[in-house]
């Protein structure tokens, strides 16, 4: 117990350690909370428990090998991180990716957004006591993981996007599976809404909780649904389009209430927008065409060519032993992940290994807003505040 001076006189406060092992911190997060009774006086997030040195490891791998590490940064949005990294290296190389591959990338990253938002909704609702929503959300998420498995052979760590295009041709009939899913999901979103949107307990736990205004959000570097729930329509897909997003028709949902409930509504609306994008992408994807850029020495040659052409065999050997060397320079590629702006700063020194890879992780930056969201509220709302940020601790600590 420490005595602190307040405007009303002196008060007794208690310091409480929440975490690192705590179910509602969605990973390994420790928050040192100073409490005055039930009121949070101070909340200080302590991070680093999941630091695995991904940025350092990238420096010891070739450009292609490093893709496998980007999956592991954010386990709920592996494809978004694949995309950010691949786009950065492609920019460094000055490589143009075929349209077909671009559209497939858009489709799959939007499926990733749905996947991530479903897990967010399920866990956030469970934190606040609505267990059934979690079960429903994971049921739908399973379908998305099955589609990822169908396309790439992996449910989570897909590494499906490669520098210059995609790893392999998606199997025939995969789009029917996608269609079945997106035809089903709107009614399921209705179901979640029926359970939560006008549920009085849900409203009491989220409305007016974790207020973060536009000015504070921008000052703290907060991006993604958190910023859009404060009324700022900043979405990298619209503002700095990449991978042909400028050819798609979608809205950027915003709210002005700046609270937890507004973030819930923004994320639900975003799921509907993602469905719109997936639908358009399905129409745009040509049934045939290259999925890799034409860049000998960078893109591995097709298997059949290796058996008949000497040159292809040499390229294959060189790419997988020494890699390829982009020109010296540096690029910063930003994309919109489910959590906000993901940035990849890749520096090349002209060798086959990246000189430096820096990941701008939205979870890391958004978590900085936790004291702002929770201080002055009650301790039970701290859980709501952690949930509403939608952090992935793997991404925070990298």
């Amino acid at each position, binding site marked *: 117990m420490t005595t602190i001076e307040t405007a009303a006189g002196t008060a007794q406060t208690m310091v409480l350690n929440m975490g690192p092992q705590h179910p509602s911190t969605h990973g390994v997060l420790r928050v040192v909370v100073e409490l005055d009774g039930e009121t949070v006086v101070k909340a200080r997030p302590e*991070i*680093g428990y999941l*630091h695995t*040195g991904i*940025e*350092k*490891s990238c*420096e*010891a791998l070739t450009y292609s090998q490093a893709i496998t590490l980007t999956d592991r940064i954010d386990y709920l949005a592996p494809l978004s991180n694949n995309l950010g990294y691949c786009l950065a290296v492609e*920019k*460094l190389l*000055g490589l143009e990716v075929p349209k077909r591959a671009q559209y497939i990338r858009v489709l799959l990253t939007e499926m990733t957004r749905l996947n991530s938002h479903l897990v967010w909704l399920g866990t956030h609702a469970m934190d606040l006591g609505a267990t059934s929503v979690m079960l429903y959300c994971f049921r739908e998420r399973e379908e998305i993981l099955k589609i990822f498995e169908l396309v790439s052979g992996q449910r989570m760590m897909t590494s499906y996007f490669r520098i210059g295009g995609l790893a392999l041709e998606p199997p025939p009939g995969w789009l029917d599976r996608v269609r079945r899913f997106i035809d089903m999901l709107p009614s399921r979103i209705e179901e979640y809404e029926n359970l939560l949107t006008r549920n009085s307990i849900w409203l009491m736990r989220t409305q007016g909780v974790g207020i973060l205004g536009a000015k504070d959000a*921008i*000052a*703290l*570097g*907060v*991006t993604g649904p958190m910023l859009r729930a404060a009324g*700022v329509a*900043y979405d990298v897909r619209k*503002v*700095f389009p990449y991978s042909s997003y400028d050819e798609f028709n979608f809205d950027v949902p915003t709210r002005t209430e700046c609270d937890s409930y507004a973030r819930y509504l923004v994320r639900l609306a975003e799921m509907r927008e993602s469905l719109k994008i997936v639908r358009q992408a399905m129409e745009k994807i040509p049934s045939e065409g290259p999925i890799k850029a034409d860049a000998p020495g960078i893109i591995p040659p097709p298997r059949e060519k290796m058996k008949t052409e000497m040159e292809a065999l040499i390229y294959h050997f060189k790419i997988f032993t020494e890699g390829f060397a982009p020109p010296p*320079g*540096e*690029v*910063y590629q*930003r994309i919109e992940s489910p959590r906000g*702006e993901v*940035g990849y*700063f890749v*520096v090349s020194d002209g060798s086959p290994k990246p*000189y*430096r890879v*820096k990941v*701008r992780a939205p979870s*890391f*930056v958004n978590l*900085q807003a936790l004291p702002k969201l929770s201080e002055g509220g009650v301790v039970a709302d701290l859980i709501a505040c952690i949930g509403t940020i939608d952090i992935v601790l793997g991404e925070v*600590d*990298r």
Partner: protein
Amino acid sequence: MTDRPVEEHPIVQNLRAWDDRAVAEVSQFRGELTIVLPPERLRRAAEYLQAERGLQFDLLSDISAVDRFPIEPRFEVNYHLVSIPLRQTLRLRVWISGQDPVLATLIPVWPTANWHEREIYDLFGIRFEGHPDLHRILMPDDWEGHPLRKDYPVEGFRT
């Protein structure tokens, strides 16, 4: 991507008109503009870039350090800025020496710099003058060395 000479870029011209000595070097690669500043002018230039009506760089996306060991000055620190209202981006860069690397904090301009600067302090050992809470963020508090420096090995045991 633009073909016009980088010196004629409106952001560069605006900054030069404000203080010619604030711009040490400008370059453009793959359509991304980089302005190199002398470290002692960083703080004032940041305030100007944020407040000036024609620039309005309100969002600091990221701060990334790069170790150019054994070149001296050894460290480069990159600030990635976005102007949400004007839809433009900019990279600011400062070079700092490997001997006693120290830089002014930008927390008063962009509060988000707090954790970014702590991370750079932790992983590169660059100190930020005026930072209210400068201690390790990702590595344990009693860790020795700064892992992202180029003279720090990727794997191995400490002897």
